[in-house]
């Protein structure tokens, strides 16, 4: 029986401010789709030099440590370029996982994209 492998997409969506990039995540972010997400962030951060990122989690159904590892791999890089990665619209079931690991201490988690944008002061 062939179940479909995990599906995941990351796309840039409308941003409330020109200096910010909003990235909408959807589907399942596990060890199967993490490499795809990593390539997406490489393109954004390294090739297009974007480093003020808001990640919109509203359509994300699932995340495992493989997906969280990808995020951890970029946070230092965007911060050293004067940017940050802020999380918005995190569903309860995903928040539960972030919380278990202590992500809220290190990452700003805002209820909406607009509130995440306000958290970028400079």
């Amino acid at each position: 029986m062939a179940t479909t492998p995990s599906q995941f997409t990351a796309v840039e969506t409308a941003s409330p401010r020109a200096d910010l990039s909003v990235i909408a995540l959807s589907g399942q972010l596990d060890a199967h789709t993490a490499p795809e997400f990593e390539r997406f962030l490489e393109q954004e951060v390294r090739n297009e030099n974007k480093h003020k990122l808001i990640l919109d989690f509203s359509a994300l159904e699932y995340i495992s440590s493989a997906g969280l590892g990808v995020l951890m791999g970029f946070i230092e890089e965007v911060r050293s370029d004067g940017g940050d990665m802020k999380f918005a619209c995190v569903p309860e079931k995903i928040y539960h996982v972030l919380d278990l690991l202590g992500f809220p201490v290190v990452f700003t988690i805002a209820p909406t994209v607009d509130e995440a944008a306000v958290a970028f002061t400079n």
Partner: protein
Amino acid sequence: MSAENIIEVRIFEPNTSVLAELREFVISTGRLVGLAEETLRNIALAVDEAATNVIRHVASQHPCLIGCTCETNSNHSEVTYEISWDDTKPFNPSIPEKEVISQRIGTFTPGGLGIFLMHHLVDDIAFDYNNGKCVVKLIKRV
């Protein structure tokens, strides 16, 4: 104590394209035995973490298959998911302390999240090794 009724067993190829099916296996068998939706999600994540580790750290070194078994004990007070795989040596990792994980997250150092998560998503976790098979048991009391 001991898990005695096997609900279902399934064998998976050791690559990440099976993870979605593996999580569905946990969710459908867990519903069968009456676990709550939040519990199902937690166990599915714990099982995913265990299998991902086998795919990343074992299957890249030796050929192996991954088995997943759902069992309950005789009085149905416990549901156990066993993840097993062929290996040449036992696997019995120490569970990282919360402080170690906080420090890793704070310094953006990857690694160690999977085993920490597994441990915190279920009520009990046990590692076993028998006849060339490693087993991780993820136990949920109901």
